[in-house]
């Protein structure tokens, strides 16, 4: 029982980081029907921003965590904005395959560009101690342990997700985003500037991934190389598909299912871990091809 709950807790921590990344995939897909493969690398850039900015922020502000995460979100948001303008906008009315291949290209470019010695460099870097981990044993006979980093991961994710839900459901631009994702021509008849809405999705999604990158750095303490985004991005992408890509609550649900199943699987056997997690995904997608909360919609002509 203790072991079970402990893995559940670990899974929730992992799922929180996946959720922040998965939301960006799903928001962008919902609006432009593009799987932005470069999103994984934006997450990586967010993590590296933590590495470079934390010492500066510590000097300027004293406490480093909150200024660092905000700065990283601003920078990754800007990166997303530029990426859309330069790489995807020119292909807006071309075939979707062109945009998809461009996304792969942008991803490879970011990875390799960032690995240049005068950018982030290809080598291992230790993430700064933004938060010093402290174990907090939970009362009770089960021997459960959490730490302050876990609370931080879950807390930051939940706060950002609540803000996002508010943004999407209550603000005019949020309602515009949902309208655009449903029907672009009609949305433009409403006076909605589609370009602004698309740019917004490409700012908000990457900003969340940037926050995820900081949490990743704080949690795991090391940045192996600028390729570190690939695995995280892939799993978050699958989480978004699992929940129903294009559906925001679905991305969160998928991310937690992914995190929890991975935590359980790796606790059984660390090599089996991914395999079992992916098997669960395949199982769910066999039963519900459009994802847990996704609606299968025939393509509109």
């Amino acid at each position, binding site marked *: 029982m203790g072991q079970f709950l402990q893995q559940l807790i670990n899974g929730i921590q992992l799922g929180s980081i996946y959720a922040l990344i998965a939301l960006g995939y799903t928001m962008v897909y919902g609006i432009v029907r593009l799987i932005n493969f470069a999103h994984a690398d934006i997450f990586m850039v967010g993590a590296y921003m933590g590495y470079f900015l934390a010492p500066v922020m510590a000097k300027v502000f004293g406490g480093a965590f909150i200024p660092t995460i905000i700065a990283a979100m601003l920078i990754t948001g800007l990166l997303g904005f530029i990426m859309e303008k330069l790489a995807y906008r020119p292909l807006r009315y071309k075939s979707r395959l062109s945009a998809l291949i461009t996304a792969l290209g942008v991803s490879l470019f970011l990875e390799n560009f960032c690995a240049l010695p005068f950018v982030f460099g290809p080598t291992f870097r230790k993430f700064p101690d933004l938060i010093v981990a402290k174990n907090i044993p939970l009362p009770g006979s089960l021997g459960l342990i959490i730490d302050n980093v876990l609370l931080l991961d879950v807390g930051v994710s939940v706060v950002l997700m609540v803000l996002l839900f508010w943004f999407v459901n209550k603000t005019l631009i949020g309602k515009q985003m*949902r309208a655009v994702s*449903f029907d672009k021509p*009609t949305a*433009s*008849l409403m*006076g909605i*500037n589609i370009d602004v809405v698309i740019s917004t999705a490409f700012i908000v999604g990457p900003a969340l991934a940037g926050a995820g990158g900081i949490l990743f750095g704080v949690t795991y303490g090391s940045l192996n190389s600028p390729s570190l985004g690939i695995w995280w991005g892939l799993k978050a992408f699958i989480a978004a598909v699992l929940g129903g890509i294009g559906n925001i609550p679905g991305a969160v649900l998928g991310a937690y299912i992914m995190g929890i199943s991975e935590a359980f699987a790796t606790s059984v056997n660390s090599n089996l871990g991914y395999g079992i997690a992916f098997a669960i995904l395949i199982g769910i997608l066999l039963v519900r091809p459009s994802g847990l909360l996704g609606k299968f919609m025939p393509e509109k002509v």
Partner: protein
Amino acid sequence: MLLEVRNIDVFYGSIRALKDVSFNVDKGEIVSIIGANGAGKSTTLRAISGILRAASGSIIYNGQDITHTPPHLIARMGISQVPEGRGIFGNLTVQENLDVALSSVKDKKSAGPNQDKVFSLFPRLKERRRQISGTLSGGEQQMLAVGRGLMQNNPFMLLDEPSMGLSPVLVEEIFGIIVEINRLGKTVLLVEQNAFKALSIANRGYVLETGSLVLSGTAAELRDNPDVKKAYLGG
């Protein structure tokens, strides 16, 4: 003249959907374009609202050339289109559909009075404002689509087949509302397969056949025209 369409051609790929179409709408009028399915009626409206681009010719609204203006700016300049097949945002609530329509409105203070007007025309929408609009009945969706157009409070409304798929009772109701909208001071360009109803409320009309305008005249003239009678009015 509020709207002047001059010699426009519109293509879908290589198919020429509109051929040298010219017509005009004066302020305060109800003008109907009638024609069979596929004649290019919707295409005409979409070209005006900017969703489709005219390959040649020009469209002048209120003295300004809007031929190449993007649709969201045309909506802000004063033209509302109620699209064919209702085109409501099925994932949004009734209220949110109305909110989103305000994207074209600069002065957000007018939102309250606009909405009161919409709800007084369509009390059903007020009852259902929290409902996801995709679950509304066909008639209610049509009311929402028209209500959303009215929310923008634009002087010129393009209505694309507002009677499509509605029961006879609802058709009566929706045409009554169009007349009411016109009485409130809005100019209406109406596209309809239901030629009889369309010509019964219009001041003037045009007949579109396979992409070309073949006839024009006052509504009464068109109603009495033997060709129109035969082709569109059931004898």
